[in-house]
């Protein structure tokens, strides 16, 4: 691994020292590779085992993914800790938790890869990040290209992506803070790509007949509810962040409407929630973190404001502080 780091550093030095035109070309090659990765993630059949690490916590999981007739089917299985599975069949997601003897089913929005931030024009992406193919490595026994994504401002995280050279599938990814400290890591240890996936591999083995089932197949019906969020505005966001989505959703606990604004710079994403606090409701104030995900909550003008993002905590807090009613 030290050799890889050395190679990364060397490439980084080279990237800095070469003319800017060459750097843009390097950026373009890396982004094109990432776009190929986005397509591969959706369109390929694969079955592999990987580890997921955040902080000191390491979990092992297996993912089986099949694409046929324009439909994605996927099964995510925990191999360590509690027996859990998430089965995705198009827009229908089923979560099975053997430790809690519960099954949850929900109809979610289908993944829209055209809306992926990676489709962002490269001209916008390079304002916030530098993209470089910095070397080659072997992950899960397969040759990969290593893409380094370095933020140009300290208010967002950096990424490293190991992309399969043959199939362009993402085999390893890490999220790093500005000190280079690893926040989250996903790494395949074994994978079969482009094989025929028999349907039985996509069916859960957890016997859920005696479990408690929670089913929500209805579309989100909260849009018709009235929520007064028009007077709220976000005064500060890191440069390059634009609104990608804004909708009114229903808070599961209270069924109260909440305004959900989604901002992204093309890679990092942040959600801003504004919800009117009921008189009896206990406000949430302060922060919380999990791996690369940070949250900060505050109360303003009888509204609960919470910002959740895959960005550094000071940035999350600064955004939350800038949400104002006028």
């Amino acid at each position, binding site marked *: 691994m030290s050799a890889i780091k050395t190679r990364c550093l060397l490439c980084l030095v080279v990237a800095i020292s070469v003319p800017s035109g060459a750097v843009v070309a390097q950026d373009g090659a890396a982004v094109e590779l*990432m776009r190929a990765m986005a397509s591969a993630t959706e369109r390929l059949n694969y079955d592999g085992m990987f580890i997921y690490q955040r902080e000191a916590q390491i979990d092992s999981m297996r993912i089986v993914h099949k694409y046929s007739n324009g439909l994605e089917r996927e099964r*995510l299985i925990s191999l360590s800790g509690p027996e859990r599975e998430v089965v995705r069949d198009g827009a229908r997601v089923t979560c099975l938790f053997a430790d809690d003897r519960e099954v949850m089913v929900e109809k979610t929005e289908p993944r829209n890869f055209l809306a992926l931030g990676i489709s962002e024009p490269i001209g916008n992406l390079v304002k916030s990040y530098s993209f470089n193919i910095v070397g080659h490595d072997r992950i899960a026994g397969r040759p990969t290209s290593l893409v380094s994504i370095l933020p140009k401002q300290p208010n967002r995280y950096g990424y490293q992506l190991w992309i399969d050279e043959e199939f362009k599938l993402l085999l390893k990814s890490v999220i790093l803070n500005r000190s280079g400290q690893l926040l989250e890591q996903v790494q395949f240890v074994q994978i079969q790509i482009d094989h025929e996936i028999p349907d039985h591999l996509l069916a859960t083995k957890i016997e859920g007949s005696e479990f408690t089932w929670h*089913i929500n197949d*209805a579309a989100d019906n909260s849009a018709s509810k009235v929520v007064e969020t028009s007077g709220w505005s976000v005064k500060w966001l890191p440069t390059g962040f634009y609104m990608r989505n804004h909708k009114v959703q229903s808070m599961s*606990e209270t069924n109260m409407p909440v305004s959900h604004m989604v901002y*992204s710079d093309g890679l990092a*994403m942040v959600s801003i929630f504004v919800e009117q606090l009921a008189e009896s409701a206990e406000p949430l104030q302060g922060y919380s973190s999990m791996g690369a995900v940070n949250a900060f909550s505050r109360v303003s003008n009888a509204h609960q404001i919470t910002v959740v993002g895959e960005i550094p905590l000071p940035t999350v807090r600064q955004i*939350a502080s800038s949400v104002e009613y006028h």
Partner: protein
Amino acid sequence: MHIEQEVLSAAIDGDHDAASDQVLQGIAGQEITRDCWARYHLIGDVLRDGLVDVASKDFSQRLRTQINDEPTIVSPRKRSSSYRRPLAGLAIAASVAAIAIIGVGRIAPESPTPARIAVSPDITLATPAQPQFVARPEIPPAISPAPLVEATPALYSQRRLNGYLVKFNEQRSSVGIPGVNPYVRIVGFETE
């Protein structure tokens, strides 16, 4: 090995002859030989497991001098345990989110049990020492940050946070870097 060192080594081991005595006398006054003499005795003591625990006065003096000569290195402060508390906080939130992602608010009527109340009451959202926040340079100075308030540990607030996390993860599946499965965060929650 140099001839003089060989003689020294033999002498220390008590294995020398008259000829060696002459060499010994010849080299006894050399500073380098005295150093060798001390070093070989030290090696012999170690081999015979006879080394005392107390370092020599000379060693202590040299160590003190070197420490005094060392430049002061200001290293990043290690995260305090108080900073780690919130990690558990949102991790637990994620575990609840795993359930909540399927819509806790709309439980099937026949379900006799609440959707899920899996938040450990002893897991609270703690606020880190203030300097860990205010000293960070990435906070733009234009807007003063909100005052730090200790996060509410109440179960209700945890559930509210879960709901936000779920909605964030739902969006994360269609915005941002593809290939990183957002449900990984849901399945792989901490079990503490």
